[in-house]
């Protein structure tokens, strides 16, 4: 055995890990490269060009779908984050009380059910309501997105809260702060990074959803992912690569932000 025996070494593990990282990124890199391809097909390289970005930008369907995605994502993220924050405050840092386990289960329930099942359920439920009320706007998509975003927004907020020392709030109360003032001056500022992380997570999750949106949307309510899925089903053009690249860039930006916000410790 070598003179410097490494405790942590396991044969082959590093090779597998390296392969995994390469394999994870390689397809994405290829996809991005082909977005800048001048040729009309994705099988040959015709030189560098921005034409597919241009064409995507001039495609009103793409722009419509993008704006719709942002609109649904923004509203769903804000609503779900507010609700998740309230729920997190209600379910952390307490002795067990009747209903607490039920709340955990209920809040995490959307994570436990395959998307396809939720999609089907909402299709049926909302189609009834549509007949009943005659309303067929974006409200259904927003409601659905808010619901499945809640458990995601809840995760970082709850994690942050659980790491927060109750003694700080006690100290504030000891120093004559009323419960509301304690919340405003101590709890909320300390919880803020968790709330931001939850907000960003919810936004990304909403933006990424395909399955539930596919089942809930009415005609003409395509979001960017459902529009892209439709296009991919029909056949591949480099325009999809361009849209994907722009989408990727946004995701990476949000994830990077999320990463730093949730890692921030004070």
């Amino acid at each position: 055995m070598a003179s410097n025996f490494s405790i942590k070494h396991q044969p082959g593990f590093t090779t597998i890990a390296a392969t995994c990282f390469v394999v994870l990124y390689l397809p994405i890199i290829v996809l991005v490269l082909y977005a800048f391809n001048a040729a009309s097909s994705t099988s040959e390289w015709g030189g560098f060009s921005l034409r597919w970005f241009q064409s995507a930008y001039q495609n009103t369907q793409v722009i419509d779908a993008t704006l719709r995605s942002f609109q649904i994502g923004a509203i769903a993220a804000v609503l779900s984050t507010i609700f998740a924050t309230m729920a997190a405050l209600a379910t952390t840092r307490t002795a067990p009380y009747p209903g607490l386990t039920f709340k955990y289960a209920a809040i995490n329930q959307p994570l436990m059910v395959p998307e396809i099942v939720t999609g089907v359920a909402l299709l049926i439920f909302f189609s009834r309501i549509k007949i009943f009320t005659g309303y067929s706007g974006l409200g259904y998509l927003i409601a659905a997105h808010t619901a499945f975003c809640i458990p995601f927004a809840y995760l970082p907020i709850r994690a942050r809260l659980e790491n927060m020392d109750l003694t700080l709030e006690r100290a504030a109360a000891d120093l004559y702060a009323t419960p509301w003032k304690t919340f405003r001056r101590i709890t909320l500022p300390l919880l803020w990074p968790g709330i931001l992380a939850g907000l960003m997570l919810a936004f990304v999750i909403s933006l990424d959803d395909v399955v539930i949106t596919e089942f809930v949307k009415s005609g003409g309510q395509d979001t960017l992912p459902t529009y892209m899925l439709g296009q991919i089903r029909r056949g591949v053009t480099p325009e999809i690569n361009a849209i994907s690249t722009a989408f990727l860039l946004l995701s990476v930006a949000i994830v990077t932000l999320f990463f730093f916000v949730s890692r921030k410790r004070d």
Partner: protein
Amino acid sequence: MPDKPDRNAIEVVNVSKIFGSGEGQVAALDKVSVSIRENEFFTLLGPSGCGKTTLLRLIAGFDFPTAGEILLYGQDIAPLPPFKRPVNTVFQSYALFPHMTVADNIGFGLEMLGKPKGEIKARVAEMLKLVKMEALAGRRTAQISGGQQQRVALARALAPQPKVLLLDEPLSALDYKLRKEMQIELKRLQHETGITFIFVTHDQEEALTMSDRIAVMSSGKILQVGSPWDIYDKPAERFVADFIGETNFLTAAISGTGNGKARATLKSGTTIEATVAEGFQPKDNATVVVRPEHAKLTKDKGDLSGTVENIVYFGTDTHIHVQLDGGEAFTVRQQNTRSAGCGFERGDKVGILIGNDAAQVLRD
């Protein structure tokens, strides 16, 4: 005893605190009563789980008693939430607000009380000076050392001029040297501010050096309240004698009580004089305690006799463990000198002399 006025700042009357319910019930405090005088440095001393912190939390308002009253200058404060009590706490973990500066932390209580800005500023400056932290007023609390955090926590709790200051093992996170410094600092602050301090600790040495009076607690009960001298020299119960300092326990028959004195007949047949609590009835099977430093070892015949078992050198003194002829163990502490050894060796047959003022009869 120094000239303390006799007014009570805090009166704890028959307070019980029961956690849990049914089978899992635990009485953290069991009908505890104690009075804490105005301007006094009062210490709750006991091992962990004895109920001292629970009692402090009840006074602060973080918990409510299951039964009993807590009076602050005659008013029952037990039902009040913490933000309505003119009592402030120094937390074991300091609990400084990490998103505020040192000055903002100190001014927080005054701000919450709705004091005008000018007054807060002046008071914060005064507090910073009191704890010698003027230079660090603008720092975030994460950027200062543990000792400095301790000072800020003190200043923050003192700033609203509470009627009583509660200190929950505030020195336990500091290293030895800093702890000694802060002990002196705390005494100074208490003297300068004239505020009643209630101090919780499990460290008997800390309690003895700092307190005007000490309450020794065990299993949710207060066993003895008294000055450090009382607690050390006249322990009422076995637990108190054992918890504070080192003690030898001897079985003796007590007779001739009166005037706080009694005659104790030891197993060896020797009779010595011992102090005793008022109203103690003579009995055959009582326990007498003798501190190791109050006994003397001799090569001649003493009040007790035995064999040297072990000799442990401590620098300032030497502990000599003796196996008494009756089978009991007895330790004698002997001051060291530079030139000579302790004068005994393992296996020596020795006698133990117990002075006239060395023994105390326990209540139980």
